[in-house]
């Protein structure tokens, strides 16, 4: 990771620069450009929340957690349910102030995500470490089951967020355009998280163990470190962060049974194009894909390419893989 390849840096600059240039040309004013940029960063941060767990878990445990999208979805549903009246969890009595209720709803979502994460790792994945292919198959199955359970609890009708609360409704003006403070807040939170996780990986003992485990799991064990515990911790954290993503996305995107799949696919594109197991690659890849999707959304307005934004991450992925088969920062063999 320390020896970042020159060609991958150039590729990153070219792609991000190109995206920003297209966004700029395509928008007629600085204000519109700013909106596209903010929307791209917003989506990029949500993607990061799904992709970071995916990437670190893969690097450390060789498990590609296909259920990561389902954790995002669970986060969205729990936060929605906790914030709104009725449903499984009704907090409107206990915390009447919606501005106060929202952080509680988010925390609740994170806790549920973490709990489900522990259950999956301890209960289901652990017996299968000797058979990695089956782990892949298992997480795939778990994703299906989680989606079905959610349909069973919350039905298949999508929920759109109706609760009004302060941050979500507030705007600020710049270049004659109204920008959503909430999006800015999510972007800020994402950036803080990117830095926090980077610090955790760089400075703490557990971070050193994780990075060492990505390289050589057996050697870490031989030093007297119980990697199983580290696995559980990392896996749980990954699931909790994905649930956090779903929870903070819900005020804008609502809760639906397809929301997880969409983010999972985009996150997979991010993880692969960033280079599997590389944290830097995941962070940069998230921003890249988020921007690309926002640019594509702009470009698709009023044209017949309605599908363009949804296939953009895959197109970007294919482009990057053709240039660098193991991703921007990756070592895939």
């Amino acid at each position, binding site marked *: 990771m320390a020896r970042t390849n020159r060609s991958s840096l150039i590729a990153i600059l070219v792609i991000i620069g190109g995206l920003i240039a297209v966004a700029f040309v395509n928008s007629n004013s600085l204000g519109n450009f700013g909106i596209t940029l903010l929307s791209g960063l917003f989506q990029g941060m949500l993607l990061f929340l799904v992709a970071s767990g995916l990437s670190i878990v893969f690097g450390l445990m060789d498990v590609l957690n296909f259920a990561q999208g389902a954790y995002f979805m669970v986060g969205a549903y729990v936060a929605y349910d906790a914030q709104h009246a009725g449903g499984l969890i009704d907090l409107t009595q206990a915390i009447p102030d919606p501005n106060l209720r929202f952080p509680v709803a988010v925390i609740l979502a994170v806790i549920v995500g973490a709990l489900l994460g522990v259950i999956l790792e301890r209960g289901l994945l652990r017996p299968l470490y000797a058979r990695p292919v089956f782990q892949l198959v298992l997480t795939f199955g*778990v994703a299906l089951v989680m989606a079905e*359970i959610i349909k069973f609890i919350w039905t298949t009708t999508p929920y759109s967020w109706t609760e009004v609360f302060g941050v979500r409704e507030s705007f600020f003006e710049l270049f004659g355009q109204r920008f959503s403070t909430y999006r800015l807040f999510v972007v800020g939170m994402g950036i803080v998280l990117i830095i926090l996780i980077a610090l955790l990986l760089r400075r703490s003992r557990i971070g050193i163990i994780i990075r060492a485990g990505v390289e050589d799991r057996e050697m870490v064990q031989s030093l007297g470190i119980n990697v199983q515990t580290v696995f559980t911790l990392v896996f749980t954290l990954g699931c909790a962060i994905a649930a956090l993503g779903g929870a903070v996305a819900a005020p804008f995107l609502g809760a639906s049974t397809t929301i997880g799949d969409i983010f999972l*696919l985009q996150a997979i594109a991010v993880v*692969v194009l960033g280079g599997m197991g590389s944290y830097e690659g995941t962070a940069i890849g998230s921003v890249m894909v988020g921007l690309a999707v926002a640019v594509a959304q702009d470009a698709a307005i009023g044209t017949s390419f309605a*599908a363009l934004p949804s296939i953009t991450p895959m197109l970007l992925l294919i482009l990057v893989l053709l240039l660098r088969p193991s991703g921007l920062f990756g070592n895939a063999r």
Partner: protein
Amino acid sequence: MAVTPRKTGWLQGNGWLLVLLALLILFPFIVGALTDSSPYGVARGDRMIMRGESVRWQSVLIEVYILAILTMSYNLLFGFTGVISFGHALFFGTASYLFGLALEFTEMDTGLAIVVGAVAAIVVCGLLGLLIGLVTLRLKGVYFAIFTLAVAEMFFIFLGRWQLTRAEDGFAITDLPAWLDPTQSRLSFYYLALVLAVLTFLFIRRLVNSPTGAVFQAIRENEDRAQSLGYNTLNYKLFSIVIAGMLAGVAGLLQVMLNKKVGPELLSVGYTVDPLLMTIIGGVGTLGGPIIGAAGLHLLDVFFRDRELVLGSMTIDIANIWALLLGVIFILAVIVFPYGVIGTWRRWQARALRKR
């Protein structure tokens, strides 16, 4: 798992198979006799209407044959070569669309369109497999899984919005000759599907027991070792994915003809999950497993689809929780039943033998 050559006659070695085959050939007539219905349907004027128990059960088995072909192709790749795909629906759906496009969107006459469509569909499936394989198979296994999933989903999303093929609605196939049209002649289509399923089985059995098949299985057990023995494992994996893609395409063609409709749902993740699940439940890397898995799960599905489960005062429509049940079976199968029906049976047999 080595295949020990047995010095018995072909007839003797395939005894069970021949009995089963005979039963399946006679099946429409047996059901017809048991339920007092005609395997040809009901005559109305000079046309045959496809009604009655025999005809209904023919459809069920046709669906089993299609799923069995799809699952056998999946198992060739996953079970015998150890390559996991999460986008098998890609081949299934691509073949359907190409065939449908040839029939409905070109000026060719029906016979030509069928031949051209079918050949193009199968060739393109092979090429698609080759391309995806070339991009990803050099890397770790998950790259292939991811890439197939991504490409399949991309096509799924794209076709769901492509106006030419009527986006999400898809389009109907109107132009099939009578003998290929299950709404006019179920019985001939039944035999077509049966023949293709049997040919697929024989082909895969032949392939798996050939030297090439031995290399496939060596790759599954330990690719580095296979490589150090001097095999170009990439070429073998490419071969396996091309064949699997083409066979999945055959299943897709049959599906289009059966439903006389083409739509994006043919590329949905369901057509990847089904063969995956059926392979695991039947027995990964066994010849009969996919058939048992496909038949077992599909028949259960048909049987339970419109039943209700009464728990005290609660009535649960099984159709509503069928996907959930399948998912739970899936997880249980992976964890506690990892060898599938056939593998577990073999282990059980081996244990019984050892005790004797």
